[in-house]
Protein backbone atom coordinates (compact mmCIF):
# COMPACT_ATOMS: atom_id res chain seq x y z
CA UNK A 1 0.00 0.00 0.00
CA UNK A 2 2.60 2.57 1.10
CA UNK A 3 5.55 3.33 -1.14
CA UNK A 4 8.78 1.64 0.09
CA UNK A 5 10.61 5.01 0.16
CA UNK A 6 8.02 6.60 2.39
CA UNK A 7 10.30 6.59 5.44
CA UNK A 8 13.04 8.45 3.56
CA UNK A 9 13.18 12.14 4.48
CA UNK A 10 14.72 13.26 1.21
CA UNK A 11 12.09 11.38 -0.79
CA UNK A 12 9.26 13.02 1.12
CA UNK A 13 10.92 16.43 0.95
CA UNK A 14 11.31 16.05 -2.79
CA UNK A 15 7.62 15.21 -3.17
CA UNK A 16 6.78 18.28 -1.14
CA UNK A 17 9.11 20.51 -3.17
CA UNK A 18 7.85 19.36 -6.55
CA UNK A 19 4.31 19.66 -5.18
CA UNK A 20 5.00 23.26 -4.18
CA UNK A 21 6.50 24.18 -7.55
CA UNK A 22 3.67 22.52 -9.48
CA UNK A 23 1.28 24.20 -7.06
CA UNK A 24 2.85 27.58 -7.78
CA UNK A 25 1.73 27.22 -11.40
CA UNK A 26 -1.78 26.18 -10.36
CA UNK A 27 -1.89 29.09 -7.93
CA UNK A 28 -0.71 31.61 -10.51
CA UNK A 29 -3.29 30.41 -13.01
CA UNK A 30 -5.97 30.46 -10.31
CA UNK A 31 -5.06 34.07 -9.52
CA UNK A 32 -5.76 34.97 -13.15
CA UNK A 33 -9.31 33.62 -12.74
CA UNK A 34 -9.81 35.41 -9.43
CA UNK A 35 -8.73 38.78 -10.83
CA UNK A 36 -11.52 38.65 -13.42
CA UNK A 37 -14.09 37.07 -11.12
CA UNK A 38 -13.65 39.59 -8.32
CA UNK A 39 -14.92 42.53 -10.30
CA UNK A 40 -17.21 41.06 -12.92
CA UNK A 41 -18.23 37.54 -11.73
CA UNK A 42 -17.10 36.19 -15.07
CA UNK A 43 -14.99 33.10 -15.71
CA UNK A 44 -12.47 33.57 -18.47
CA UNK A 45 -12.24 30.01 -19.80
CA UNK A 46 -10.10 31.24 -22.69
CA UNK A 47 -7.30 32.54 -20.46
CA UNK A 48 -5.16 29.40 -20.74
CA UNK A 49 -5.41 29.25 -24.51
CA UNK A 50 -4.50 32.91 -24.78
CA UNK A 51 -1.50 31.94 -22.65
CA UNK A 52 -0.61 29.18 -25.14
CA UNK A 53 -0.89 31.66 -27.96
CA UNK A 54 1.46 33.98 -26.08
CA UNK A 55 4.09 31.33 -25.43
CA UNK A 56 4.04 30.11 -29.06
CA UNK A 57 4.42 33.71 -30.20
CA UNK A 58 7.35 33.92 -27.79
CA UNK A 59 8.89 30.82 -29.36
CA UNK A 60 8.63 32.40 -32.79
CA UNK A 61 10.09 35.68 -31.56
CA UNK A 62 13.11 33.93 -30.05
CA UNK A 63 13.80 31.37 -32.80
CA UNK A 64 12.89 33.29 -35.96
CA UNK A 65 13.31 36.93 -35.06
CA UNK A 66 16.32 36.72 -32.78
CA UNK A 67 14.66 38.09 -29.64
CA UNK A 68 16.15 37.23 -26.27
CA UNK A 69 13.85 35.24 -23.97
CA UNK A 70 13.22 38.13 -21.56
CA UNK A 71 12.60 40.62 -24.37
CA UNK A 72 10.17 38.20 -26.02
CA UNK A 73 8.44 37.67 -22.69
CA UNK A 74 8.06 41.42 -22.21
CA UNK A 75 6.57 41.76 -25.71
CA UNK A 76 3.99 39.00 -25.21
CA UNK A 77 3.06 40.23 -21.72
CA UNK A 78 2.31 43.71 -23.06
CA UNK A 79 0.41 42.16 -25.99
CA UNK A 80 -1.55 40.00 -23.53
CA UNK A 81 -2.54 43.05 -21.50
CA UNK A 82 -3.87 44.67 -24.66
CA UNK A 83 -5.44 41.46 -25.94
CA UNK A 84 -7.28 40.83 -22.69
CA UNK A 85 -8.69 44.35 -22.61
CA UNK A 86 -9.68 44.10 -26.27
CA UNK A 87 -11.39 40.74 -25.73
CA UNK A 88 -13.43 42.15 -22.87
CA UNK A 89 -14.38 45.26 -24.80
CA UNK A 90 -15.28 43.66 -28.13
CA UNK A 91 -16.75 40.26 -27.21
CA UNK A 92 -17.50 39.97 -23.49
CA UNK A 93 -19.21 43.33 -22.97
CA UNK A 94 -21.85 42.77 -25.66
CA UNK A 95 -22.34 39.17 -24.46
CA UNK A 96 -22.79 40.36 -20.87
CA UNK A 97 -25.99 42.22 -21.86
CA UNK A 98 -27.47 38.80 -22.70
CA UNK A 99 -26.53 37.31 -19.37
CA UNK A 100 -23.93 35.19 -17.68
CA UNK A 101 -24.34 32.13 -19.91
CA UNK A 102 -23.66 34.16 -23.02
CA UNK A 103 -20.36 35.25 -21.44
CA UNK A 104 -19.35 31.69 -20.50
CA UNK A 105 -20.18 30.47 -24.01
CA UNK A 106 -18.24 33.34 -25.56
CA UNK A 107 -15.12 32.50 -23.57
CA UNK A 108 -15.59 28.85 -24.51
CA UNK A 109 -15.81 29.84 -28.18
CA UNK A 110 -12.62 31.91 -27.85
CA UNK A 111 -10.98 28.93 -26.14
CA UNK A 112 -11.80 26.63 -29.09
CA UNK A 113 -10.90 29.15 -31.78
CA UNK A 114 -7.56 30.11 -30.21
CA UNK A 115 -6.71 26.47 -29.51
CA UNK A 116 -7.39 25.54 -33.14
CA UNK A 117 -5.53 28.60 -34.41
CA UNK A 118 -2.42 27.72 -32.40
CA UNK A 119 -2.61 24.15 -33.75
CA UNK A 120 -2.96 25.43 -37.33
CA UNK A 121 -0.27 28.09 -37.13
CA UNK A 122 2.41 26.22 -35.21
CA UNK A 123 1.40 22.58 -35.85
CA UNK A 124 0.34 19.92 -33.41
CA UNK A 125 3.84 18.63 -32.70
CA UNK A 126 5.58 19.58 -29.49
CA UNK A 127 8.41 22.06 -29.89
CA UNK A 128 11.12 23.41 -27.66
CA UNK A 129 9.86 25.82 -25.03
CA UNK A 130 11.32 29.33 -24.82
CA UNK A 131 13.31 29.27 -21.60
CA UNK A 132 16.02 31.36 -19.96
CA UNK A 133 17.66 28.13 -18.77
CA UNK A 134 19.50 25.45 -20.72
CA UNK A 135 17.39 22.32 -21.24
CA UNK A 136 14.12 23.92 -20.12
CA UNK A 137 14.06 24.05 -16.37
CA UNK A 138 17.81 24.52 -15.92
CA UNK A 139 20.17 23.47 -13.15
CA UNK A 140 19.24 22.22 -9.72
CA UNK A 141 19.45 23.75 -6.31
CA UNK A 142 20.15 20.68 -4.20
CA UNK A 143 18.74 20.86 -0.69
CA UNK A 144 19.45 17.28 0.45
CA UNK A 145 21.97 15.18 -1.44
CA UNK A 146 20.85 11.64 -2.15
CA UNK A 147 20.12 9.24 -3.40
CA UNK A 148 17.34 10.15 -3.53
CA UNK A 149 18.05 13.89 -3.79
CA UNK A 150 15.75 16.70 -2.77
CA UNK A 151 16.13 19.65 -5.11
CA UNK A 152 14.45 22.56 -6.84
CA UNK A 153 15.16 23.32 -10.49
CA UNK A 154 15.79 26.92 -11.57
CA UNK A 155 12.44 26.65 -13.33
CA UNK A 156 10.79 25.77 -10.00
CA UNK A 157 12.46 28.75 -8.34
CA UNK A 158 11.31 31.01 -11.17
CA UNK A 159 7.73 29.73 -10.75
CA UNK A 160 7.71 30.25 -6.99
CA UNK A 161 9.39 33.66 -7.33
CA UNK A 162 6.93 34.76 -10.01
CA UNK A 163 3.99 33.75 -7.83
CA UNK A 164 5.40 35.78 -4.94
CA UNK A 165 6.05 38.84 -7.12
CA UNK A 166 2.67 38.71 -8.90
CA UNK A 167 0.69 38.24 -5.69
CA UNK A 168 2.75 40.91 -3.93
CA UNK A 169 2.22 43.36 -6.77
CA UNK A 170 -1.53 42.69 -6.92
CA UNK A 171 -1.86 43.04 -3.14
CA UNK A 172 0.01 46.34 -3.10
CA UNK A 173 -1.90 47.53 -6.15
CA UNK A 174 -5.27 46.70 -4.60
CA UNK A 175 -4.52 48.17 -1.18
CA UNK A 176 -2.19 51.09 -1.86
CA UNK A 177 -3.49 52.72 -5.04
CA UNK A 178 -6.61 54.64 -5.94
CA UNK A 179 -7.27 52.36 -8.90
CA UNK A 180 -6.95 49.32 -6.61
CA UNK A 181 -9.40 50.80 -4.13
CA UNK A 182 -11.81 51.40 -7.00
CA UNK A 183 -11.35 47.78 -8.11
CA UNK A 184 -12.15 46.51 -4.62
CA UNK A 185 -15.18 48.81 -4.51
CA UNK A 186 -16.46 47.31 -7.76
CA UNK A 187 -15.88 43.83 -6.33
CA UNK A 188 -17.79 44.78 -3.18
CA UNK A 189 -20.82 46.54 -4.66
CA UNK A 190 -21.10 47.29 -8.37
CA UNK A 191 -24.09 49.62 -8.10
CA UNK A 192 -22.55 51.81 -5.42
CA UNK A 193 -19.21 51.81 -7.23
CA UNK A 194 -20.93 53.05 -10.34
CA UNK A 195 -22.85 55.68 -8.34
CA UNK A 196 -19.49 56.82 -6.90
CA UNK A 197 -18.29 57.65 -10.40
CA UNK A 198 -16.13 54.57 -10.99
CA UNK A 199 -16.25 53.59 -14.69
CA UNK A 200 -17.21 49.91 -14.49
CA UNK A 201 -16.40 49.11 -18.11
CA UNK A 202 -12.83 50.35 -17.74
CA UNK A 203 -12.42 48.38 -14.50
CA UNK A 204 -13.58 45.20 -16.25
CA UNK A 205 -11.14 45.84 -19.09
CA UNK A 206 -8.30 46.34 -16.61
CA UNK A 207 -9.22 43.08 -14.88
CA UNK A 208 -9.25 41.08 -18.12
CA UNK A 209 -5.98 42.68 -19.19
CA UNK A 210 -4.15 41.73 -15.99
CA UNK A 211 -5.75 38.29 -15.93
CA UNK A 212 -4.67 37.51 -19.49
CA UNK A 213 -1.11 38.65 -18.80
CA UNK A 214 -0.95 36.38 -15.73
CA UNK A 215 -2.23 33.49 -17.87
CA UNK A 216 0.52 34.21 -20.41
CA UNK A 217 3.09 34.18 -17.62
CA UNK A 218 1.68 30.84 -16.40
CA UNK A 219 1.93 29.31 -19.87
CA UNK A 220 5.54 30.51 -20.15
CA UNK A 221 6.39 28.86 -16.80
CA UNK A 222 4.60 25.63 -17.76
CA UNK A 223 6.78 25.57 -20.88
CA UNK A 224 9.93 26.16 -18.79
CA UNK A 225 9.01 23.28 -16.48
CA UNK A 226 8.11 20.82 -19.24
CA UNK A 227 10.92 21.87 -21.58
CA UNK A 228 8.50 21.69 -24.48
CA UNK A 229 5.27 23.34 -25.55
CA UNK A 230 2.37 21.98 -27.56
CA UNK A 231 -1.05 23.29 -28.47
CA UNK A 232 -2.78 21.26 -25.73
CA UNK A 233 -0.40 22.29 -22.94
CA UNK A 234 -2.87 24.48 -21.06
CA UNK A 235 -5.85 22.08 -21.17
CA UNK A 236 -4.93 20.12 -18.02
CA UNK A 237 -3.88 23.42 -16.43
CA UNK A 238 -7.41 24.72 -16.94
CA UNK A 239 -8.76 21.90 -14.76
CA UNK A 240 -6.15 22.40 -12.04
CA UNK A 241 -6.30 26.20 -12.12
CA UNK A 242 -10.10 26.21 -11.90
CA UNK A 243 -9.92 23.66 -9.09
CA UNK A 244 -7.56 25.87 -7.11
CA UNK A 245 -9.73 28.93 -7.74
CA UNK A 246 -12.94 27.13 -6.75
CA UNK A 247 -11.52 25.49 -3.64
CA UNK A 248 -9.84 28.72 -2.50
CA UNK A 249 -12.87 30.85 -3.25
CA UNK A 250 -13.31 32.55 -6.62
CA UNK A 251 -13.05 36.05 -5.20
CA UNK A 252 -10.03 35.50 -2.97
CA UNK A 253 -6.42 35.96 -4.12
CA UNK A 254 -5.21 34.45 -0.86
CA UNK A 255 -7.54 31.47 -1.33
CA UNK A 256 -6.24 30.91 -4.87
CA UNK A 257 -2.62 30.89 -3.67
CA UNK A 258 -3.19 28.59 -0.70
CA UNK A 259 -5.47 26.21 -2.61
CA UNK A 260 -3.11 26.17 -5.62
CA UNK A 261 -0.06 25.28 -3.53
CA UNK A 262 -2.04 22.72 -1.51
CA UNK A 263 -3.45 21.15 -4.68
CA UNK A 264 0.07 20.82 -6.10
CA UNK A 265 1.26 19.09 -2.95
CA UNK A 266 -1.75 16.75 -2.84
CA UNK A 267 -1.43 15.86 -6.51
CA UNK A 268 2.29 14.99 -6.06
CA UNK A 269 2.15 13.54 -2.59
CA UNK A 270 -0.80 11.15 -2.82
CA UNK A 271 0.48 9.09 -5.79
CA UNK A 272 4.03 9.33 -4.37
CA UNK A 273 3.09 7.84 -1.02
CA UNK A 274 0.29 5.44 -1.88
CA UNK A 275 1.31 2.89 -4.47
CA UNK A 276 -2.33 2.12 -5.16
CA UNK A 277 -2.80 5.61 -6.63
CA UNK A 278 -1.05 6.07 -9.96
CA UNK A 279 0.38 9.43 -11.03
CA UNK A 280 -2.31 9.96 -13.66
CA UNK A 281 -4.96 10.27 -11.00
CA UNK A 282 -4.13 13.93 -10.29
CA UNK A 283 -7.08 15.13 -12.32
CA UNK A 284 -9.45 12.83 -10.43
CA UNK A 285 -8.10 14.13 -7.12
CA UNK A 286 -8.71 17.68 -8.33
CA UNK A 287 -12.26 16.97 -9.41
CA UNK A 288 -13.07 15.23 -6.12
CA UNK A 289 -11.78 18.31 -4.27
CA UNK A 290 -14.01 20.58 -6.37
CA UNK A 291 -17.05 18.40 -5.69
CA UNK A 292 -16.33 18.30 -1.96
CA UNK A 293 -15.88 22.08 -1.89
CA UNK A 294 -19.12 22.69 -3.74
CA UNK A 295 -20.95 20.40 -1.35
CA UNK A 296 -19.48 21.58 1.92
CA UNK A 297 -18.50 25.19 1.33
CA UNK A 298 -19.70 26.50 -2.05
CA UNK A 299 -18.03 29.88 -1.65
CA UNK A 300 -14.63 28.20 -1.22
CA UNK A 301 -12.21 28.31 1.70
CA UNK A 302 -11.65 32.06 1.68
CA UNK A 303 -14.43 33.25 -0.59
CA UNK A 304 -17.24 35.54 0.48
CA UNK A 305 -20.84 34.44 0.23
CA UNK A 306 -22.76 36.12 -2.55
CA UNK A 307 -26.49 35.75 -2.79
CA UNK A 308 -26.93 37.09 -6.28
CA UNK A 309 -25.25 38.82 -9.12
CA UNK A 310 -26.10 42.52 -9.26
Amino acid sequence: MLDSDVGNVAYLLQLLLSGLSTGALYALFAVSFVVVWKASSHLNLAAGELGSLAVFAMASLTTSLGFGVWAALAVVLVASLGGGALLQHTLIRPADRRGIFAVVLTTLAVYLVVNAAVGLLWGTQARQAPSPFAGGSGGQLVLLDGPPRAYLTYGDLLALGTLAVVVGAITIGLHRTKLGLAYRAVASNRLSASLSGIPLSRMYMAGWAVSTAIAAMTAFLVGVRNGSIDFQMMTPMLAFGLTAATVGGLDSIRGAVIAGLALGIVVELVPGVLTAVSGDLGLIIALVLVLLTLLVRPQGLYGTKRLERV
Partner: protein
Amino acid sequence: MSEPLLQIRDLDAFYGRTQALQGVDLAVDEHEIVVLLGANGAGKTTVLRAISGLLATRGSIAFAGTSLGGRTPEQVVRLGIGHVPQGRGVFGDLTVEENLRVGGFTRSDTTSVEQDIGRWYDVFPRLRERRTQAAAYLSGGEQQMLAIARALMSRPRLLLLDEPSLGLARLVTLDVFATLREINQKEGTAMLLVEQNAELALDVAHRAYVIESGRIEVSGSAESLHEDDAMRRAYLGY
Protein backbone atom coordinates in the same frame (compact mmCIF):
# COMPACT_ATOMS: atom_id res chain seq x y z
CA MET B 1 -38.04 82.90 -11.78
CA SER B 2 -34.77 81.16 -12.53
CA GLU B 3 -34.51 77.60 -13.86
CA PRO B 4 -34.71 74.90 -11.20
CA LEU B 5 -31.54 72.88 -10.48
CA LEU B 6 -33.23 69.66 -11.57
CA GLN B 7 -36.04 69.72 -14.09
CA ILE B 8 -37.81 66.52 -15.12
CA ARG B 9 -40.39 66.79 -17.88
CA ASP B 10 -42.79 64.18 -19.21
CA LEU B 11 -40.67 61.23 -18.09
CA ASP B 12 -41.70 57.71 -19.14
CA ALA B 13 -39.85 54.59 -18.00
CA PHE B 14 -40.38 50.92 -18.73
CA TYR B 15 -39.35 47.63 -17.15
CA GLY B 16 -39.82 45.28 -20.06
CA ARG B 17 -43.40 45.99 -21.14
CA THR B 18 -44.53 47.36 -17.83
CA GLN B 19 -44.68 51.12 -17.77
CA ALA B 20 -43.16 52.24 -14.48
CA LEU B 21 -43.41 56.01 -14.98
CA GLN B 22 -46.02 57.94 -16.95
CA GLY B 23 -45.35 61.54 -17.84
CA VAL B 24 -43.63 62.48 -14.60
CA ASP B 25 -42.95 66.22 -14.11
CA LEU B 26 -40.79 67.12 -11.15
CA ALA B 27 -38.43 69.92 -10.21
CA VAL B 28 -35.91 70.55 -7.45
CA ASP B 29 -34.65 74.07 -6.84
CA GLU B 30 -31.17 74.96 -5.72
CA HIS B 31 -30.75 74.46 -1.92
CA GLU B 32 -34.18 72.85 -1.68
CA ILE B 33 -35.27 69.59 -0.02
CA VAL B 34 -37.99 67.86 -2.01
CA VAL B 35 -39.63 64.66 -0.90
CA LEU B 36 -41.20 62.17 -3.26
CA LEU B 37 -43.80 60.11 -1.41
CA GLY B 38 -45.66 57.01 -2.46
CA ALA B 39 -46.42 53.40 -1.70
CA ASN B 40 -44.26 50.41 -2.56
CA GLY B 41 -43.94 50.00 -6.31
CA ALA B 42 -45.34 53.44 -7.10
CA GLY B 43 -42.21 54.38 -9.06
CA LYS B 44 -40.24 56.40 -6.52
CA THR B 45 -36.99 54.49 -6.92
CA THR B 46 -37.44 54.46 -10.68
CA VAL B 47 -37.35 58.27 -10.75
CA LEU B 48 -34.00 58.27 -8.94
CA ARG B 49 -32.61 55.51 -11.14
CA ALA B 50 -33.63 57.46 -14.22
CA ILE B 51 -31.82 60.58 -12.98
CA SER B 52 -28.63 58.62 -12.31
CA GLY B 53 -28.59 57.04 -15.75
CA LEU B 54 -29.26 53.52 -14.47
CA LEU B 55 -32.34 53.20 -16.65
CA ALA B 56 -33.26 54.05 -20.22
CA THR B 57 -36.14 56.53 -20.31
CA ARG B 58 -38.23 58.78 -22.56
CA GLY B 59 -38.69 62.42 -21.74
CA SER B 60 -36.27 65.03 -20.53
CA ILE B 61 -34.13 65.36 -17.42
CA ALA B 62 -32.04 68.49 -17.12
CA PHE B 63 -29.58 69.27 -14.36
CA ALA B 64 -28.17 72.80 -14.03
CA GLY B 65 -29.09 73.40 -17.65
CA THR B 66 -27.40 70.20 -18.93
CA SER B 67 -29.44 67.32 -20.34
CA LEU B 68 -28.85 64.01 -18.53
CA GLY B 69 -30.27 61.96 -21.41
CA GLY B 70 -28.03 59.05 -22.40
CA ARG B 71 -25.43 59.70 -19.72
CA THR B 72 -23.78 56.92 -17.70
CA PRO B 73 -23.95 56.88 -13.88
CA GLU B 74 -20.25 57.89 -13.77
CA GLN B 75 -20.94 60.98 -15.85
CA VAL B 76 -23.94 61.93 -13.75
CA VAL B 77 -21.81 61.85 -10.58
CA ARG B 78 -19.23 64.07 -12.20
CA LEU B 79 -21.93 66.60 -13.10
CA GLY B 80 -22.71 66.98 -9.39
CA ILE B 81 -25.39 64.47 -8.40
CA GLY B 82 -24.81 62.14 -5.45
CA HIS B 83 -27.01 59.06 -5.04
CA VAL B 84 -27.59 57.05 -1.86
CA PRO B 85 -29.25 53.87 -3.12
CA GLN B 86 -31.95 51.94 -1.33
CA GLY B 87 -30.56 49.56 1.26
CA ARG B 88 -27.62 51.95 1.75
CA GLY B 89 -25.22 50.18 -0.59
CA VAL B 90 -22.13 50.51 1.57
CA PHE B 91 -19.01 48.62 0.50
CA GLY B 92 -19.28 45.94 3.18
CA ASP B 93 -15.75 44.54 3.04
CA LEU B 94 -14.11 47.95 2.79
CA THR B 95 -13.36 49.96 5.91
CA VAL B 96 -15.40 53.02 6.79
CA GLU B 97 -12.56 55.28 5.69
CA GLU B 98 -12.11 53.40 2.40
CA ASN B 99 -15.85 53.81 1.75
CA LEU B 100 -15.44 57.56 2.09
CA ARG B 101 -12.36 57.58 -0.13
CA VAL B 102 -14.28 55.69 -2.84
CA GLY B 103 -16.92 58.41 -2.53
CA GLY B 104 -14.23 60.93 -3.48
CA PHE B 105 -13.13 58.87 -6.50
CA THR B 106 -14.13 61.55 -9.01
CA ARG B 107 -11.97 64.19 -7.31
CA SER B 108 -8.31 64.48 -8.15
CA ASP B 109 -7.14 66.70 -5.27
CA THR B 110 -6.07 64.22 -2.57
CA THR B 111 -5.55 66.87 0.11
CA SER B 112 -9.05 68.24 -0.11
CA VAL B 113 -10.47 64.70 -0.20
CA GLU B 114 -8.69 63.97 3.09
CA GLN B 115 -10.00 67.26 4.52
CA ASP B 116 -13.54 66.31 3.53
CA ILE B 117 -13.19 62.91 5.19
CA GLY B 118 -12.32 64.77 8.40
CA ARG B 119 -15.26 67.13 7.90
CA TRP B 120 -17.77 64.27 7.58
CA TYR B 121 -16.22 62.60 10.61
CA ASP B 122 -17.08 65.80 12.51
CA VAL B 123 -20.68 65.59 11.30
CA PHE B 124 -20.89 61.83 11.98
CA PRO B 125 -18.62 61.17 15.00
CA ARG B 126 -19.67 57.49 15.09
CA LEU B 127 -17.96 57.01 11.74
CA ARG B 128 -14.70 58.40 13.09
CA GLU B 129 -14.82 55.91 15.96
CA ARG B 130 -15.28 53.09 13.47
CA ARG B 131 -13.02 54.35 10.70
CA THR B 132 -10.90 51.16 10.48
CA GLN B 133 -13.82 48.73 10.74
CA ALA B 134 -15.35 46.95 7.77
CA ALA B 135 -18.60 48.72 6.88
CA ALA B 136 -20.54 45.45 7.05
CA TYR B 137 -20.12 45.45 10.84
CA LEU B 138 -21.79 48.84 11.32
CA SER B 139 -25.33 49.11 12.62
CA GLY B 140 -28.11 50.02 10.20
CA GLY B 141 -28.12 53.65 11.26
CA GLU B 142 -24.35 53.92 11.03
CA GLN B 143 -24.42 52.35 7.57
CA GLN B 144 -27.01 54.89 6.48
CA MET B 145 -24.83 57.73 7.74
CA LEU B 146 -21.82 56.20 5.98
CA ALA B 147 -23.78 55.92 2.73
CA ILE B 148 -24.81 59.58 2.99
CA ALA B 149 -21.27 60.72 3.81
CA ARG B 150 -19.92 58.60 0.95
CA ALA B 151 -22.29 60.28 -1.51
CA LEU B 152 -21.40 63.73 -0.12
CA MET B 153 -17.69 63.04 -0.70
CA SER B 154 -18.23 63.79 -4.40
CA ARG B 155 -19.34 67.31 -3.34
CA PRO B 156 -22.70 67.06 -5.07
CA ARG B 157 -25.03 70.00 -5.67
CA LEU B 158 -27.95 67.58 -5.56
CA LEU B 159 -28.21 64.54 -3.32
CA LEU B 160 -30.63 61.73 -4.19
CA LEU B 161 -31.71 59.65 -1.18
CA ASP B 162 -33.64 56.43 -1.64
CA GLU B 163 -35.61 55.59 1.51
CA PRO B 164 -32.99 56.39 4.12
CA SER B 165 -35.46 55.42 6.86
CA LEU B 166 -35.75 51.84 5.59
CA GLY B 167 -35.12 49.37 8.41
CA LEU B 168 -34.20 52.07 10.92
CA ALA B 169 -35.79 52.67 14.30
CA ARG B 170 -37.85 55.87 14.53
CA LEU B 171 -35.31 57.64 16.72
CA VAL B 172 -32.47 56.79 14.37
CA THR B 173 -34.52 58.01 11.42
CA LEU B 174 -35.19 61.28 13.22
CA ASP B 175 -31.46 61.64 13.80
CA VAL B 176 -30.66 60.95 10.12
CA PHE B 177 -33.29 63.45 8.95
CA ALA B 178 -32.07 66.11 11.38
CA THR B 179 -28.55 65.68 10.02
CA LEU B 180 -29.81 65.95 6.44
CA ARG B 181 -31.54 69.20 7.30
CA GLU B 182 -28.36 70.50 8.90
CA ILE B 183 -26.26 69.60 5.85
CA ASN B 184 -28.83 71.26 3.63
CA GLN B 185 -28.68 74.46 5.67
CA LYS B 186 -24.90 74.56 6.07
CA GLU B 187 -23.75 73.34 2.66
CA GLY B 188 -26.76 74.34 0.60
CA THR B 189 -26.93 70.85 -0.91
CA ALA B 190 -30.27 70.33 -2.65
CA MET B 191 -31.93 66.99 -1.89
CA LEU B 192 -34.48 64.77 -3.55
CA LEU B 193 -35.68 62.38 -0.89
CA VAL B 194 -37.75 59.31 -1.69
CA GLU B 195 -39.76 58.05 1.27
CA GLN B 196 -42.60 55.84 2.43
CA ASN B 197 -42.42 57.37 5.86
CA ALA B 198 -44.42 60.47 4.94
CA GLU B 199 -44.89 61.91 8.39
CA LEU B 200 -41.19 62.26 9.20
CA ALA B 201 -40.17 63.17 5.67
CA LEU B 202 -42.67 66.05 5.41
CA ASP B 203 -41.11 67.55 8.52
CA VAL B 204 -37.72 67.87 6.88
CA ALA B 205 -38.79 68.79 3.33
CA HIS B 206 -39.72 72.11 1.77
CA ARG B 207 -41.88 70.67 -0.97
CA ALA B 208 -43.42 67.30 -1.70
CA TYR B 209 -44.76 65.20 -4.55
CA VAL B 210 -46.96 62.14 -4.22
CA ILE B 211 -46.55 59.46 -6.86
CA GLU B 212 -49.01 56.66 -7.48
CA SER B 213 -48.79 53.97 -10.17
CA GLY B 214 -46.08 55.91 -11.97
CA ARG B 215 -47.94 59.24 -12.05
CA ILE B 216 -47.48 62.34 -9.95
CA GLU B 217 -50.88 62.77 -8.26
CA VAL B 218 -50.27 65.62 -5.85
CA SER B 219 -47.64 68.26 -5.35
CA GLY B 220 -47.28 71.24 -3.08
CA SER B 221 -45.44 72.66 -0.13
CA ALA B 222 -44.64 70.19 2.63
CA GLU B 223 -46.74 72.21 5.07
CA SER B 224 -49.86 72.22 2.90
CA LEU B 225 -49.62 68.45 2.41
CA HIS B 226 -49.13 67.99 6.12
CA GLU B 227 -52.28 69.94 6.88
CA ASP B 228 -54.50 68.50 4.16
CA ASP B 229 -56.27 65.72 6.10
CA ALA B 230 -58.18 64.26 3.14
CA MET B 231 -55.07 64.06 1.01
CA ARG B 232 -53.07 62.58 3.85
CA ARG B 233 -55.58 59.82 4.45
CA ALA B 234 -56.00 59.08 0.75
CA TYR B 235 -52.36 58.88 -0.24
CA LEU B 236 -50.16 58.76 2.80
CA GLY B 237 -52.18 56.62 5.15
CA TYR B 238 -51.66 58.29 8.49
